[in-house]
C-alpha cells in the first residue's frame, strides 16, 4: 500500500518549492537584465523552440513563463499521480472516479485549444 496522503503531500510540496524558486529567480533576472524601470508586455512565443532557447539563455520572461507552467502543472500532476496510487492500492472504485476527472481535464484542454484557435 502506498500512503496516498504522503504521495499527495510530496507532489504539492515539490510543485510549490520549484515554482517559488523559479518565480524568485525570474524576478531577480529581470532586475539584472533591465537597469531602468521597464515597460513589460505579455510575452508570446511563436514556437516551443524559441521558448526553450530563451529559457536556456535565462531570459527573465521565459523563466517566469516556465514557473507558471510548473505551477499550473502541479494540481494536474497530482490528479494523474492519484490514479496511479489508487491503482497500486487496488482501489478500483477510485481509479474510476479519478479517471473521470483526468478525462474532463483532457477534454477542457482540447476545448481550450479549439477555443483559442477560434478567437485567433
Amino acid at each position, binding site marked *: 500500500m502506498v500512503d*496516498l*496522503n504522503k504521495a*499527495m*503531500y510530496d507532489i*504539492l*510540496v515539490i*510543485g*510549490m518549492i520549484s*515554482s*517559488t524558486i523559479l*518565480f*524568485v529567480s*525570474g*524576478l531577480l533576472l*529581470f*532586475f539584472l537584465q533591465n537597469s531602468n*524601470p*521597464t*515597460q*513589460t*508586455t*505579455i*510575452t*508570446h512565443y511563436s514556437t516551443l523552440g524559441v521558448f526553450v532557447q530563451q529559457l536556456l539563455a535565462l531570459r527573465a*520572461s521565459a523563466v*517566469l*513563463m516556465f*514557473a*507558471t*507552467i510548473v*505551477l*499550473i502543472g*502541479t*494540481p*494536474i500532476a*497530482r*490528479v494523474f499521480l*492519484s490514479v496511479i496510487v489508487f491503482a497500486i492500492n487496488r482501489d478500483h*472504485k*477510485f481509479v474510476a*472516479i*479519478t479517471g*473521470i*476527472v483526468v478525462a*474532463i*481535464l483532457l*477534454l*477542457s*484542454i482540447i*476545448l*481550450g*485549444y479549439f*477555443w*483559442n484557435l477560434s*478567437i485567433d
Partner: protein
Amino acid sequence: MEVTVTFLAICFLAAVFAGFFGGLFGIGGGAIIVPFLTVFMGVPIHEAIAISLVSVIATSNAGGSSYLEQKITNIKLAMYLEVATTIGALVGSVVTLLLRSSVLFMIFGILLTYVAISSFKSRTSDERRMVRNEFANAKQDAISKYLGLTGSYFDASEKKQVDYHVNGASKGAIISSFAGVTAGLLGVGGGVIKVAAMNMFMNVPLKAAVGTSKFMIGVTAAVGALLFFVAGVVDVYVLAPIALGTTLGATLGTLIMNRLRSYALKVGFGFLVTYLAYTMFAQGLALAFSIHLPMGG
C-alpha cells in the same frame, strides 16, 4: 505594466493578505485579488481573472499541502467532488455563451446570501454537533457508503479527535458543480461554495471542509487557468509577486486555522460571503441596469 520594486512589493503584500484569508477559510482568495488588481493596479478585468486563477493554484499547492500534513484533508471526498466541480467548470464555459452574465451574477448573489445567512445562523452548530457526537453517528446515503466516505481529524482548539460520516453525496455533488461553474465563469467563489456544500449538506465538520476545499480548488482553477494560459492572457510579471505572496499567505493561514474555534471561523466566513454576495449583486446591477454601487466594477 511598468515593473518596479514598489509595484512588486504592493502586489506581494496584497497577495499575502488574500492568501492568508484563503488559507483560513479554504478558498482561493480571488475575491480579494481580482478587485485589488482591477481597482488599485489598473489591470484589465480579463487579465486580472486570469492572474487570479493561476494564483489560486499557488495557494492550493501551499495550503493544500499544509492541511495534508496536518491530516485534515479528506482526499477521497475531494476526488469524488472533483468530478462534479470539473464538470461544472466545463459546463460553465458553455453556459456563459447562453445566459446573460447579469443573470448569472444575480443567481450567485442569491446563492451566496443564503450561504451567508446560514453561516451566521449555524455559527455554534459545529461545536454542538461535536459534543453530541452527531458527526460520527450520521446515517450515510448509498453513494457515501459505497465509496467509504468517512473521515477523522484532530481538532486543535477542542483538543480531540473528530470522526465523521459523510452523507448527502448527491446533493453535495450538485452544489459543488455550481462551485465549478462560478470558478470557470467569474474567477471567484469556487471555494466558498465547496466549503458550504460539505459543511451544510454533507455532514463534514467545518475544519475538514476547509482543508478538503483548499486541496480541491487547485484542480478546479487549473481547468480555467490552462485555458487562459494557452490563450496568452497571463502577464507573468504581475503573476510572479501575486503567486509568491499568496503562497506565503496561505502557509500562514493554514498554520493557525486549526487552533481557532469553529465558531470564530464561521462568523469570519459569514462576513466574507456577505461581501461576496454584495459584489455579485453590484456587478449584476451594473450590467443589467447600469446602476453603479461602490466597488461594483
